[in-house]
């Protein structure tokens, strides 16, 4: 799982070769519309969107339709699906409703992933942009800094952070952010290095635009396609990290998440496969939806490489 940080990065780079192909001048809206059209023609990507919408619906509308407190003990423990008077997904090791857990667990999972992703984007893009834009010593220094985080084993590093502080939702999100930002920083840097020497950037400099303005108003929009793809995939990775940490026992019991449900019921897995299987499937489908969407976006932004 943690191999991803390099995997994504390299994948991104190799795409980057052809990335933005064709839009070497400031692109923007037309590209967006074209990309949307291509995206919508991609059946897998549309399936991803549908799954994601389903997940969001379940997570944010579901609890009001299925009104069962996931932390209430409602029956004997470990009653399987199909047992009489037991909810459809069975009960967990305490006698709580697994289905209610699945319905309510998505909120925390998605929240952790969102906060972590936001952090990754802010840190990664800022550092990558500055390094790529200024180059030289600043670039070297920032990349050395990035490497420190990149050579640390990501999951172990996150695990250490969560253990040393506390397994609260916020600490978990931050720890994931801390270990996953380098890939985005490198990708951003690569994009900025490429854009830096293009005509329209030079033009902006010539008319005296500030560095910040050039970086974030002129260059960033042109670097967006690969960044959007990477961000989508990072969402999926962040969810997997949250789940992995929770599986290892580092979840926040006051905020039930899918990973937490699995971590909790891990000790009883031999007594009830359903306790881990349903939350596991929820995680799987959510991550899958992000992967599908990411793939679809990549194809849409790089029509040349369609069919990959």
């Amino acid at each position: 799982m943690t191999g991803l940080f390099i995997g994504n990065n390299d994948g991104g780079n190799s795409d980057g070769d052809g990335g933005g192909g064709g839009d070497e001048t400031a692109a923007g809206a037309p590209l967006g519309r074209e990309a949307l059209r291509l995206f919508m023609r991609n059946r897998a990507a549309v399936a991803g969107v549908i799954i994601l919408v389903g997940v969001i619906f379940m997570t944010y509308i579901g609890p009001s339709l299925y009104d069962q407190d996931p932390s209430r003990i409602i029956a004997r423990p470990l009653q399987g699906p199909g047992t009489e008077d037991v909810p459809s997904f069975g009960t967990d090791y305490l006698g709580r409703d697994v289905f209610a857990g699945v319905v309510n667990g998505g909120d925390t999972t998605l929240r952790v992933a969102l906060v972590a992703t936001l952090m990754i984007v802010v840190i990664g893009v800022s550092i990558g942009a500055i390094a790529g834009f200024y180059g030289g010593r600043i670039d070297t220094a920032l990349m050395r800094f990035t490497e420190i985080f990149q050579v640390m084993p990501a999951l172990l590093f996150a695990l250490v952070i969560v253990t040393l502080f506390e397994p609260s939702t916020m600490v978990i999100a931050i720890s994931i952010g801390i270990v996953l930002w380098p890939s985005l920083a490198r990708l951003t840097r690569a994009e900025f290095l490429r854009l830096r020497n293009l005509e329209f950037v030079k033009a902006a400099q010539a008319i005296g635009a500030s560095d910040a303005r050039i970086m974030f108003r002129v260059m960033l929009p042109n670097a967006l396609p690969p960044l959007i793809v990477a961000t989508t995939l990072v969402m999926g990775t962040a969810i997997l990290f949250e789940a992995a940490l929770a599986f290892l026992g580092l979840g926040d019991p006051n905020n039930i998440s899918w990973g937490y449900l699995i971590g909790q019921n891990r000790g009883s897995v031999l007594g009830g496969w359903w306790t881990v299987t349903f939350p596991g499937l929820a995680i799987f489908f959510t991550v899958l939806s992000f992967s599908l969407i990411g793939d679809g976006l990549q194809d849409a932004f790089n029509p040349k490489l369609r069919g990959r």
Partner: protein
Amino acid sequence: MLGLVLAVAIISFTLLHIAPGDAAVVIAGESGSGDPELLAEIRQLYGLDDPFVTQLGSHLGRVATGDFGQSYRFNESVVSLISERIWPTVLLGITAIFFAVVVGIAVGVYTARRPESWASHLATILALVGFSIPVFFLGIELIILFASVLDWLPAGRMRDLRFEGNFIQRWIDIGEHLILPAFTLAVLYLAQYSRQTRASMLETLQSDFVRTARSKGLSERTVVYKHALRNAVIPVITLAGLQLGTILSGALIVETVFDWPGLGRLAFESVLARDAPVLLALLMLSSVLVILANLATDVVYRLIDPRIRVGGAST
């Protein structure tokens, strides 16, 4: 590069130092609770009362001479602990990555050549599944299926402790234990490699030099296997090399799920036990591995194709 290792050492030491909690209490707890006198003794023994900078300095000094201290949790030196646990991880990691590379490339080539066949679609979907499935979830489900329900394979550990047999039989025993964890670990990599191979193949097959080769009348086989594949394999090998460096992280969950006696499990247990000396050593070891993997990949890369230099990957 040394600077990088030093930075990792300093950051991890600082992190473990500023964390709430008292190392002496941990050590005392490990020896079965304890009283204030014992705590004081332990603090003195491990130098826990010294100022932070002194502790950091003496830690770095010792590390420089290859002394990583004593594990808090085990009455044993960190070096001997790690040297006991490293081989299972190496075995697991190399098996998994080798399997993933071989199968990943095969699948990638096939799907690139016949993109519209049903097998290709299936492979594409499976790759996405492999990419999206939580490793521990896959591991647990495999244990339930193959070890518990079907009872074909051992559920965990690396060998049968009472197994008696000759050298080859012992390795067969280990091999049986290796199948599930190695497969689980390989799935993620496999998904990446097949996608990567496929993408590179497609790209290469459309490129000018392949078109030239075709126009020269070379057979499709030669074009695909001699020219295109060689180019397509390079990024996969690169990726695999780099990931071998991060194997500790990848193995952490798999080793925990399958009770594999390697460094990943040791790392996880050391985190829970707050075994700082072991953790510090593992973080450093892992960083060094990543750096070495980068260097090695760089070298191999140049050997395969002297024209290309690795950009982003070199550290």
